[in-house]
């Protein structure tokens, strides 16, 4: 489709005007979500320059090309500052792939259906929590705010629906590299999360019966190496986002489950890793423990929304490249995202947090974060937590959900500390060395198996 009546800078001016005037609907040529509801496609919502990088850069960089230090200047304004730095100074290469226009490839099926079904029903209540309009009940599933009117509404999308699944079991593998490119630490960890509200695939409705006052249950347990193996934590998130989660931990040294405070969220979980609790989903803390949420921009961007699943590789492990030893970055594909929201917030509930501000780029097509930067208290750029999202399909290989459709989710993360030069790169594997396999919306007994005090006592060794 070629829409010639709009000149090249139309979308840039349009986004600037929308941001300054506080107009919050997604889409340039037409409203995005009604279009998605009608067609499942996004093409008609954006002019040509926002549908292909070739058009956007007037042919300087096109789909199929690889962004390197040699051509990155042409797309500098489409990358977050850390990704730009990585390409220019660290040898990172980014393959450009065509834009995903079929929105069914940007969501799990059930989640997209719930999003469309429930659109317009979410409000923020007097406390700032998401509620169903008219009933005041907890959220009923899908993205609550398709056209966020504030930074808080935008981040509520992340906090309430980070994975777009009712539950998941991730098999995460992590490598932590020094600034010199040496792999200093490596971990395997499992993560299980189950939503208590906003369920989209449950035959019993939107709520987990008896748990309606909770947002979700989340546990993480380390599988390797030996000195952290068996360390496991259970987070029980309250639905009220003013409250901190309940945190219970099993530490092998203690051989028992103990309760822990949960307000220290800006520290590495284990030695060497650059990931903080606060980083998960770019919204790792209860959203109302942060403040000054605001939408600061709207723009096109490059981000990973496809071609990030390596089902053709053993244990789905992506190849690596770049950095001092050629192993700092996952091989990454990015596509031109026609419209992202740029959100900022400050950790007002954490007076001594080392983070002064976070900036999150949300793809309006599915409201996932495609880039996430934090800044220290001096305002200096500190960390990037860049996730790659994708359908789990590649060529003739696919990882199918229970209804036979390729599943979808985050595939990898680059967590890079700009100030120390340390990189933690994680990806979601098919299985861990202990035989634990990744799974979406399963197993059926995940709550009992992974998300109780009894469970983390059993998982600890």
């Amino acid at each position, binding site marked *: 489709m070629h829409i010639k009546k709009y000149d090249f800078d139309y979308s840039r001016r349009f986004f600037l005007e929308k941001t300054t005037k506080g107009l919050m609907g997604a889409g340039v040529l037409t409203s995005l979500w009604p279009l998605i509801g009608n067609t499942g496609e996004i093409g008609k919502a954006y002019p040509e320059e926002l549908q292909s990088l070739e058009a956007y850069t007037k042919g300087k960089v096109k789909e199929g090309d690889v962004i390197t230090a040699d051509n990155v200047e042409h797309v500098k304004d489409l990358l977050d500052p850390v990704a730009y730095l990585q390409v220019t100074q660290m040898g990172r290469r980014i393959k450009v792939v065509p834009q995903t226009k079929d929105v069914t490839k940007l969501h799990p099926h059930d989640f997209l259906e719930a999003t469309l079904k429930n659109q317009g029903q979410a409000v923020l209540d007097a406390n700032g929590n998401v509620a169903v309009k008219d009933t005041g009940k907890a959220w009923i599933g899908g993205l609550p705010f398709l056209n966020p009117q504030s930074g808080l509404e935008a981040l509520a999308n992340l906090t309430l629906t980070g994975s777009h699944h009712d539950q998941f079991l991730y098999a995460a593998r992590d490598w932590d590299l020094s600034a010199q490119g040496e792999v200093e630490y490596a971990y395997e960890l499992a993560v299980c999360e189950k939503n208590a509200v906003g369920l989209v695939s449950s035959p019993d409705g939107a709520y987990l019966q*008896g748990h309606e006052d909770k947002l979700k249950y989340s546990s993480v347990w380390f599988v390797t190496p030996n000195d952290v193996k068996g360390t496991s934590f259970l987070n029980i998130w309250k639905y009220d986002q003013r409250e901190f989660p309940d945190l219970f931990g099993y530490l092998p*040294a203690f051989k028992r489950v103990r*309760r822990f405070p*949960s307000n220290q969220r800006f*520290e590495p979980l284990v030695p060497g890793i650059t990931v903080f609790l606060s980083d998960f989903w770019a919204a790792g803390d209860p959203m109302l423990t942060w403040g000054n949420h605001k939408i600061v921009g709207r723009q096109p961007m490059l981000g990973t929304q496809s071609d990030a699943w390596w089902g053709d590789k053993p244990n789905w492990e992506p190849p690596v490249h770049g950095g001092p030893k050629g192993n700092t970055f996952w091989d990454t594909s990015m596509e031109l995202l026609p419209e992202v929201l740029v959100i900022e917030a400050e950790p007002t509930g954490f007076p001594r947090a080392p983070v002064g501000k976070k900036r999150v780029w949300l793809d309006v097509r599915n409201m996932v974060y495609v880039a996430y930067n934090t800044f220290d208290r001096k305002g200096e750029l500190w960390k990037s937590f860049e996730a790659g999202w994708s359908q789990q399909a590649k060529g003739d290989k696919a990882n199918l959900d229970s209804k036979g459709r390729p599943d979808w989710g985050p595939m990898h993360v680059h967590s890079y500390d700009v100030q120390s030069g340390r990189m933690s790169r994680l990806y979601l594997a098919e299985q861990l060395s202990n035989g634990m396999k990744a799974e979406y919306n399963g*197993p059926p007994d995940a709550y009992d198996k992974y998300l109780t005090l*009894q469970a983390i006592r*059993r998982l600890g060794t």
Partner: protein
Amino acid sequence: MNKRRLLKVAVASAVPAAMLWTAQTMAVDVAISGFIREEAAYRIGQEPNPSLRGSAYAKGPQTNTVRGNPVSEATYAAFTGQDVTNPASWVLPPAQFQKEDFNNDERWNLMATRAEVDFNLKFNENWTGFVKVRGYYTADIIDEYGKPNNFKTNMTGLNGDCGNRLEVCDRNYMIDLPAAYLDYNNGPLWVRVGNQQIAWGEALFFRVADVANGLDLRRHSFLDYASEEYADERTPSPAIRMSYNLTQQWEVETFLQMFQPTIHPRSGSPYAFINSPYQIRDDIGFDDYEDFVNGGIRFNGQFDQLGLQFFMVSRHNPDPVYRWGAGGQTALDPAFGMINGQVFSEQVFRASGLPGSPVPEGGGTYGSADWMGGAALGGLDGVEALNVLGRDFPFIGGFLTNIAGVSAMLDPSGQGMLPNADIANGIWATNVQEALPVFDMFFSILGDLDADIISSYPAENVFGAGGNYIFYAEPDTLLDQLVVRFEATYTPDRKWTNNVARDPLTQNEWITALAFEKYHRFSQNYPATFFSLQWMHKTASDFVGRPLSTIGGTVTKRATGKPKGWLGDGWDGFSFAFQQPTPDLKWRYDFSVLYDIFGGYLIQPAVRYKPSAAWTVETYATWMYAKNTESVFAPIEWTDEVGMRVGYQF
């Protein structure tokens, strides 16, 4: 190995054997990991372990109180067959016992290599398994009377000569399976079957609800890295443990576990805290208890900020109650003949160095000062221990009665050496002045002495409850996410060592602990500092389980007990600890203090360095102080040391 022991080992080995068989015959995911670690500790204190080498507590010349007292000298003459009417002819014992000093001033307390290999097994979604193999080798860093025995216990094990059922050992190595179990999980049900540790409660280092397992103190006693608590010490045992989530809030958990006692450091090993002339015969003691099963049940509840637990455990207390055993030294039976229907070998003592004694001459307790000093360090009343010997062993009772009678006859005043004896009620000595010459009479006749002490593990029921509560307040304030934990147990008719008597001391006991924990961030640049402050209160015994009624003795004073400290009745202790990691968690600085209200403390600063995934280096220093023998630290006050561990994991 006899058939009975073979059967028990087979039962204990059933789970690991089944796992091995299953792993070989069906598709099982097996993950293997482990580490090897060098562990060393260097003594920085001036004094060596007083419980080594024939009671190094007393060395050099020791006063013989038989001498200088005409009545006791005459009594000695009578007992040695001399003419009591002619003092000039008496051949008296030396005025001083020469207590040999065997101390070599070795400085290394520990020089060991540890290897642990873990096998994680996954059979299917419901069945998993875990096996940990632990190997521990210690170099011969001390030499008491030959090479020390660090591990051989002759209680149980694959060859019947070790401490745990799934263990092989020799004097300087042990290999065991601290964990070898199968897990079955189906919905709210979880069953764990096999060799395992069970830890209840939330207090750290203070064992209140942690009543399921005893401690194996043969490796580094409990003096290793304080922040690891008792992970390495807690003795595993074959058990069936079941848990069921009754509701979202409540869980019930129960266990049945083959009895496995606490194992103290072996006599003659670097960290021994029982005086070396006294052989710990837990091999004999355990024989009477190895068929017993301990069991417990608890209910756990979690209600937002409040956590609760209620439990009851019916058990044989794994912490031993000691009593004297018969010495069995028949070599002297003819010399002493029959006294009160017993021969010499049926009473406690052995003349060290003579046939039938495992201790060389000079290695036994020698002299009343040595006796009283050793007893005081062990939390015993040295005077009452004499009466215990008389009551429990007719041979000694008769001997004491003879001393009382003969000395009274030889005393012009008619009082004799034991003027206040109430023999009908089994009391011979009533104070230290009376007891010292009697002890020295023994030593003057027999020389230095050694003996056996036999463990027993009386039954008891422990009732307990606990809770935790997390406070919420304004960020950065003292109360913000302060975790408060409380635990209490009540044990009616608990039994303790009663001056090594056959009949244990019996008393009800309350144990409570109150803990405050908080993570607090002092700066934006450093991760939060973890603080822990705990208070423990015990009504009848101290931190290490010595009954309060028998502590506090000295060389010249019998123990009168210490029923209260400045906080009131009972023993109280406080612990304070903090941990401060660096921003990347590569370094962590720990500091731990344990304060004994009776006058003592332990301080341990430590540093942990983890430069890479494979390597970990930990170093720490431990200082202890005991004001006197009332302090729990008195027996181990010598243990000022610097330790280092260097580990490589795979």
